[in-house]
């Protein structure tokens, strides 16, 4: 197109800029999550992730002066530190919630009863009083703290390995793997044989079966929940991994058969017919010729099914249940959204743990994914 006379280069620039904008809008949300998962909880809750690289200023909740009193000349002194654990600088402070930035670091505030309070830039404070403050209500310090940008792997350590705070995201990760891998592998072979029969064997009712599978492609699995749960209970499977695997297999089959049949039908007829002339049985043709040649379609479907089972929430909730020891990542995330809706360091990290595997699969196998999508969707076009 760009070789054609009279195509304006300004237009091409506009295209470049629009694409950059589009891409930015599309990756921005994910990057936000990614950056947030490496920030400390203090910093996440005090500033947007886009300012993660600049110095963080935040209003610190009131801290009451506390500490052992000692005598210094004729003064009684209480000393302490505002931020014993973190590295932060005080940029302003005050003693009342109405004026939290009344004083500069190093200023001295005159309080009741001749009390004098000084807060230094590093966060140490010193309260002096002409008489003992034992038993008195000591003043509160409101401060604004500036801390350098801080990144940590602590969230991941916390979420994956700690037994307390994040409540078993690591366990959920393993549960999800346990659901996804068998649910990906089992349907493939079942579907491949059926697809071969539908593609290369002659028998009455074939066209009808293909049409039925196309129809089943869009049947909402919502309809299957209760009857299948009843069925599982009746045959003694109940809620558990076996039930999820079977359910995912059943729900994945229409797409698997459809994709594989479409692919197999496109294989060169000559190869299959010459093998038949050579005396190969259908079983041999399938195993030795069709299956190896269908690798791209098998890969496409495997990726689809893996992404779908990994990312699924509904089937896992219904057939696996909501107990802590069987909950999958998506279910765990939904729970966290409810119970820890404000703890972004945990939410963001857990969410990232849940999407990192599909993202890796996506980027490694994008070619097959695209191929599968095209085979599954472009028809009648």
């Amino acid at each position, binding site marked *: 197109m*760009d070789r054609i006379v009279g195509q304006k280069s300004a*237009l091409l620039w506009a*295209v*470049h800029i629009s*694409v950059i904008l*589009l*891409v930015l809008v*599309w990756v921005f*949300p994910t990057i936000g*999550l990614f950056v947030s998962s490496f920030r400390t909880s203090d910093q996440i*809750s005090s500033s*947007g992730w*886009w300012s993660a690289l600049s110095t963080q200023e935040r209003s610190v909740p009131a801290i009451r002066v506390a500490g052992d009193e000692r005598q210094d000349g004729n003064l009684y002194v209480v000393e302490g530190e505002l931020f014993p654990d973190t590295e932060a600088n005080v940029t302003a402070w005050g003693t009342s919630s109405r004026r939290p930035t009344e004083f500069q670091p190093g200023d001295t505030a005159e309080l009741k009863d001749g009390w004098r309070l000084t807060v230094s830039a590093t966060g140490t404070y010193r309260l002096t009083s002409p008489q003992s403050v034992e038993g008195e209500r000591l003043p509160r310090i409101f401060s604004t703290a500036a801390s350098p940008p801080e990144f940590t792997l602590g969230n991941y350590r916390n979420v994956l390995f700690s037994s307390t705070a994040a409540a078993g995201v690591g366990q959920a990760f*393993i549960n999800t793997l346990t659901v996804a*891998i*068998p649910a990906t*592998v*089992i349907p493939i*072979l079942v*579907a491949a044989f*059926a697809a071969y029969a539908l593609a290369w*064997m002659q028998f009455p009712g*074939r*066209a009808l079966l293909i*049409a039925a*599978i196309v*129809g089943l492609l869009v*049947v*909402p699995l*919502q309809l*299957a*929940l*209760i*009857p299948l749960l009843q*069925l599982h209970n009746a045959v003694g499977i109940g809620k558990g991994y076996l039930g999820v695997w079977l359910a995912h297999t*059943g729900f994945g*089959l*229409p797409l698997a058969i459809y994709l594989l049949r479409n692919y197999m039908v496109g294989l060169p007829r000559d190869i299959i017919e010459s093998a038949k002339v050579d005396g190969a049985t259908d*079983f041999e043709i399938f195993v030795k010729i069709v299956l190896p040649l269908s690798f791209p379609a098998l890969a496409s479907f495997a990726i689809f099914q893996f992404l779908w089972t990994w*990312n*699924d*929430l509904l089937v896992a909730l*219904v057939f696996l249940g909501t107990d802590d020891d069987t909950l999958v*990542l998506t279910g765990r*995330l*939904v729970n966290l*959204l409810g119970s820890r809706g404000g703890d*972004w360091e945990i939410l*963001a990290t857990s*969410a990232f743990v849940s*999407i990192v595997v*599909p*993202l890796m699969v996506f980027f490694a196998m*994008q070619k097959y994914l*695209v191929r599968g999508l*095209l085979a599954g*969707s*472009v*028809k*009648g076009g």
Partner: protein
Amino acid sequence: MHPALAGIVTIIVGVGGCIGYFYFSNLFIDKILFPAKGPNISRNINRANMIRPWLFLFPALFALGLYLAYPVFATFWLSLTDRDAGGAFVGFDNYSQMMTEPKFWEAIRNNMLWLIVVPAMSTAFGLLAAQLTDRITWGNFAKSLIFMPMAISFVGASVIWKLIYDTRPEGQDQIGVLNAIWLYFGGEPQTWLTITPWNNFLLMLVLIWIQTGFAMVILSAALRGVPEDTVEAAIIDGANPFQIFFKIKIPQIMGTIVVVWTTITIVVLKVFDIVLAMTNGQWETQVLANYMYDKLFRAFDWGVGSASAMIIMLLVSPILVWNVYNARKEMR
């Protein structure tokens, strides 16, 4: 047994079982039932070949029948019964009860909104992205970034977008981008997800974000399939880039646009995770699939739950019929 171990065992049993089934059943009809030798050799071969397709198909058909076809009828039956009355037949009572619930109508109304907005916007953005990225050298890189949300679960995406919609009280720094931008232009912090009816659109945005990549990939392939010479003929006819796009290219990929549209429509009808994770249907954001989940697994009202599932099925049916019709036409 540890579940992971059970998983491995299941894979081995499942795959081995499949191979064993196919192998031995073949062996059985070829060697024992209809051996290809003796006086009836040709009759035997013919019979074996008549049975073999069904041998290949049986496991798949069994699973499909049990896990997809049977439940449609079972759900329909459930929707006509009352669980509390021991599964007694109650006719369309569940449906009429559902019709009296405002939440149901809210879900219907929202679903209609979703059905219009999400496919339209996803297709439009996908078309735009496809057309633009096809014209630049780093287009494939851009494509894979726009396509990426496809790999993210609806729940994961909900977390991502909840961070964007996050709200802090006035006076604190906002950590949600939307509020930060809103404040930059002089607004007050808003709790976005509670503002009806706009919260619905904020939820839809999540799905649009995910589905645009899908639309883009399919439409980009379709656009590349538009014969180059029709474009050149249009250039000679004096059409400008916009006329070429809208009058030459779009009409030629209309079939694919319909396919993309209907595919996204089906996704929309089933959408459940996003609503559950972000608002759980509060603040007038209920949709059918989540309504159904509420009824089935929170209220344990299987009758009304199944009735609402049948409504989803009813909405999917036209697309089902259309797809089957097209598939049959194609095979001829």
